[in-house]
């Protein structure tokens, strides 16, 4: 998540390419043919632009007003020329249409043996579930920043089956040149075969609210042999050896994208801040008030709309089934540690 306050060097999401001017990496099977068509378009349009604007400048120089007695040409139309300059562009346009259409059909026909990964988009986070793994995949990528990790084997077709829980989002991986709107109420799919290892950002490109620009994920292309290990690592969220419970709690805090709505300090972002929350007496929307303890934290994570703090709208999604007890205890320990 691109937190809004973290300076650029701390931003962990991988940069697209090493230098801003380097072209996009061609990291999927679609990329090569698309880049070729993009180049062909640029050349043809570039030449026609140069011709049109060149002719314009030439005429501007040659036929500028020299004296008041200038005589201008009586030419009003020329049938053959007009036919030529409507037929030639039409031919080029048809060529582009046909090539575009061929690639588009390839884009929309996934091979049968593709690995199915299901992705659920909801307001401002992607939940990625691998086949056969129950827990969703969220791993801390680099310090400071957290984004769900989409692990993809190199050289194998992958089909992302996507659906949305609330509004229209759009899954876009620029390095793979694939994009599809995730319209709620129906399944959308995108397929690709990664051909280059590395990590690439994944954007949401359909406007979906306040944190639209922070709704990122990271695509990690791994060699096929250690794909299983990577997936297991991505989807397991246990206390590492020698890791304090608070540190593991912070990992859970980031893995579950709590920080997209709750700040680690006391300030309000979308929901109340966690700083100094534990032990504080909060007044609820129904007027009652209670001190924040483990039970309240546990209940409001599993059923967030049961007791909502006054002044907030019940828009927090439920995490029932996504956080097991061990992770819950670590999360509560972490929240306790925040002042």
């Amino acid at each position: 998540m691109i937190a809004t306050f973290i300076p650029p060097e701390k931003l962990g999401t991988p940069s697209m390419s090493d230098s801003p001017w380097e072209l996009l990496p061609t990291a999927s099977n679609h990329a090569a043919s698309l880049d070729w068509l993009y180049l062909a378009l640029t050349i043809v349009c570039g030449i026609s632009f140069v011709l049109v604007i060149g002719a314009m400048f030439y005429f501007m120089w040659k036929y500028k007003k020299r004296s008041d007695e200038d005589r201008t040409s009586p030419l009003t139309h020329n049938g053959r020329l007009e036919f030529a300059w409507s037929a030639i562009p039409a031919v080029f346009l048809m060529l582009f249409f046909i090539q575009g259409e061929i690639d588009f059909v390839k884009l929309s026909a996934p091979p049968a043996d593709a690995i199915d990964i299901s992705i659920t988009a909801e307001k401002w986070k992607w939940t990625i579930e691998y086949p056969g793994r129950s827990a969703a995949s969220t791993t801390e990528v680099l310090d400071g920043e957290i984004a769900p990790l989409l692990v993809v084997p190199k050289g194998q077709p992958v089909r992302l089956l996507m659906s949305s829980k609330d509004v229209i989002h759009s899954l876009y991986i620029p390095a793979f040149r694939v994009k599809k709107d995730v319209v709620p109420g129906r399944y959308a799919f995108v397929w690709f075969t990664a051909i280059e290892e590395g990590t690439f950002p994944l954007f949401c490109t359909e406007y979906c609210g306040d944190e639209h620009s922070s709704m990122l994920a990271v695509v990690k292309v791994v060699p096929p042999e250690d794909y299983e290990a990577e997936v297991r690592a991505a989807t397991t969220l246990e206390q590492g050896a020698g890791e304090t419970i608070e540190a593991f709690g912070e990992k859970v805090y980031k893995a579950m994208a709590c920080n997209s709505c709750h700040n680690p300090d006391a300030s309000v972002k979308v929901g109340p801040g966690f700083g100094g929350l534990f032990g504080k007496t909060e007044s609820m929307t129904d007027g009652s008030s209670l001190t924040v303890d483990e039970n309240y934290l546990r209940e409001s994570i599993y059923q967030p709309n049961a007791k909502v703090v006054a002044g907030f709208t019940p828009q927090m999604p439920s995490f029932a089934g996504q956080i097991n007890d061990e992770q819950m205890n670590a999360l509560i320990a972490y929240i306790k540690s925040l002042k």
Partner: protein
Amino acid sequence: MAHADSTQNSVYLNGKPVENPHEDHHHVSPVWEFTAVFVALLILTILTYVVSFAGLGPASLPVAMIIAGTKGALVALFFMHLKYEDRFYGFVFAVTLLFVAIFFTLTLFDMSSTDELNEEAGIKYKRTVEDSAEAAESAAAMKAAGLKPAAAGGGGH
């Protein structure tokens, strides 16, 4: 000779101002024509009413549309004088119906082809998936309560 095309007015032919060539001639249709059209409309209304009970199944939509179309044409041509007016008003109305047709055909084409392509790719609508899950669930609940699961009557359950 400055030619006068159909939609241009006060043309000067040989220097003489010509009365507006496509001036609206006031056509007054006889009363019996109106009554005849009115009776035809009533008959067609009764026809469409009766036909709806005949249980034509899938053909009922086209039939109803044809009847409504003829009624609409009758109203437009006779009650709105399109038959006797300058061609241009009819042309404007026809162009509107053309744009409505474009809007309908292309949108319905997209909606229906989305369903076909999804079926081919084995991707169901989320709604239908949720509906069938819900239906299975309620059927199981009914069986658990000893009731025979309700037949498909009364709608999609």
